[in-house]
């Protein structure tokens, strides 16, 4: 049980930068999720913590110990791999007990700990089987069991659910969450799936091209993304991003989001727009509410547009239309029947919109 600290961590493959000057402090018992598109350096970071990848520069501390030069075996971390990485020639039981056997733990103690892991993960019926006789979900469970029995300082998960089918993935996600609550250990979890990141994490780190883009709780990164990348990466469907002109019309600052649609600039943003002629506007699909009548108060935006496509999903219907040539998605809760070409009224709560600088793509506050 320990905290993990990364100081100025850098990894280069020749000229290619995988991770750049990463600083991170992970307190004990935190569930930290590293998320980002493939090639962003998240797995490399995890593998460096495990000791499977050499560090180009920087320092890694587990507990209070500098582990830069330590072999993986001496770091007391457990890792769960994407491909399960079970030992095919050992039974489930042997797989679970292997690390303890190597550590020369007393036989009875091994038995107790394996039994404990078997109970936690519901593997009772499968103890004598070989990995080739297990399904994907069962293998994943064994892989987690193998990590549990060691009682490590930290668990490292490398995209553990990406080889499972959708239903199983949801189920295992819940189990991992429960496991964390039960074990109370530091977990560092790598995924490219933002839904996994949101549901599991105490704190999310969004990475891109070897850099950390944002660190925060799931709600923070969802509600207050620091830039366009984070805004579009977190949330499903991704946030609608529009390029808008800022113009003065009738002595008012207006935002032009489409040829005929001009909207009043919210008061609190006016100062920010002083020297700007263009901004990115970000609106989440659920904040773009289809309404039957114009029942707005003064602060809300309101416009109507013909829709191109409607996808009913049962609990909601997703409406697709174009603004300024860009496809926009709106989520309609309490759906009523609509057909293509219908003119729909949309209402936007201006306290929920985001503006990003057109050059830096950073959020304007």
């Amino acid at each position, binding site marked *: 049980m320990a905290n993990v600290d990364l100081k100025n961590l850098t990894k280069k493959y020749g000229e290619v930068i995988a991770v750049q000057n990463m600083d991170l402090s992970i307190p004990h018992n935190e569930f930290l999720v590293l998320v980002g598109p493939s090639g962003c350096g998240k797995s490399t970071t995890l593998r460096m913590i495990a*000791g499977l990848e050499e560090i180009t520069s920087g320092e890694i501390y587990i507990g209070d110990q500098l582990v830069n030069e330590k072999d*993986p075996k001496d770091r007391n971390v457990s*890792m769960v791999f994407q491909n399960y990485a*079970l*030992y*095919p*020639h050992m039974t489930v039981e042997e797989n679970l007990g292997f690390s303890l056997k190597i550590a020369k733990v007393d036989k009875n103690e091994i038995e107790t700990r394996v039994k404990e892991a078997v109970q936690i993960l519901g593997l009772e019926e499968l103890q004598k089987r070989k990995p080739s006789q297990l399904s994907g979900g069962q293998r994943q469970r064994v892989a987690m069991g193998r990590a549990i029995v060691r009682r490590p300082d930290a668990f490292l998960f490398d995209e553990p659910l990406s080889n499972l089918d959708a239903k199983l993935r949801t189920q295992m996600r819940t189990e991992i969450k429960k496991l964390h609550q039960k074990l109370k250990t530091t977990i560092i979890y790598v995924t490219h799936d933002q839904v996994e990141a949101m549901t599991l994490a105490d704190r999310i780190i969004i990475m891109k091209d070897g850099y950390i883009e944002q660190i925060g709780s799931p709600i923070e990164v969802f509600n207050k993304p620091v830039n366009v990348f984070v805004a579009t990466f977190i949330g499903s469907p991704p946030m609608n991003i529009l390029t808008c002109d800022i113009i003065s019309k009738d002595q008012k600052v207006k935002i032009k989001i489409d040829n005929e649609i001009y909207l009043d600039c919210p008061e609190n943003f006016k100062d920010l727009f002083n020297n700007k002629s263009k901004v990115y506007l970000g609106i989440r699909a659920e904040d773009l509410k289809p309404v039957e009548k114009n029942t707005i108060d003064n602060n809300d935006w309101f416009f109507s547009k013909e829709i191109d496509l409607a996808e009913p999903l049962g609990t909601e219907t997703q409406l697709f239309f174009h603004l300024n040539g860009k496809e926009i998605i709106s989520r309609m809760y309490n759906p009523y029947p609509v057909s293509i070409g219908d003119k729909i009224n949309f209402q936007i709560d201006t306290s929920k919109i985001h503006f990003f600088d057109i050059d830096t793509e950073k959020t304007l506050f």
Partner: protein
Amino acid sequence: MNKKFFSSPIILILPSLLAIGFVIIIPLIFSFYTSFTSYKLTRPDSLYNFIGLRNYERLIDNTKFWYAFGRTILFLAIVLNLELLFGLGIALLINKITWGQRTLRTIMMFPMMFSPILVGFQWKYIFNDNIGVLNNFLYLFGYESAIPWLIDKYLAMGSIMVAEIWANTSIFAILLLAGLLGIPRDPIEAARVDGCNSWQVFKNITLPFLMPFIFIALTIRSLDVGRAYDIVHIMTGGGPAMRTELLWTMIARIGYKDANMGFANAMSYVSIILSIAFTYYFFTKLVAARRELGQQ
């Protein structure tokens, strides 16, 4: 002949049946038959001189044959084990290399490119007690009495083994390297995180993955070494005083030099049992090793 016999399936497999018949089955039956006759190559009419089990009875009492039999087993055991050990070592080392691996892989296979006869001649020259490279080399370091490598009753066998191992270790190395390259990276990394040092990773993960390849190599090489003839024939001709006589050098001598083909064939049939036993043993082990890995 009824119509059914010339149905199309029969006609279609007839060519291969005929080929197999002429090339394998008839010679097999013929040689088996001759082992029950006193057939001598120099007296063709003796082919019809059926003597029942006489050849086999003689063979059972023939101590020279059983010495050669035992010597062949010893030769097999030592050569196979050392080749496995060296081959595994070379494969592990080459697998570690990141730069120039292909070049090394090619260089490693050089010994396989020479005919066994030439390898025999080369080593015969190296081990020659008067003009041999080895003795000259030892002389340089002050060892002045020439060692009779191919003449001493113990050293001769060892010298042949060295030549055989030099020529064929690369077969093990190449097969085991193929095995090493095929091992998934994940279980090895998992083992390292699980607390294994390099030796423990090798023993617990790499070796089980390698076992099927080891048994395939052993099967192939046991058949190969079991029929060893050329290197022995060139280097010592079975001497000194038959100390390096293996099964096939002995059988060839009796069959062709002494022209005693009936007796030689009887020996061959007994010898084949040895090859079958080795192949069966290694194949059983191979199947077991693959089942262990869940591959079957």
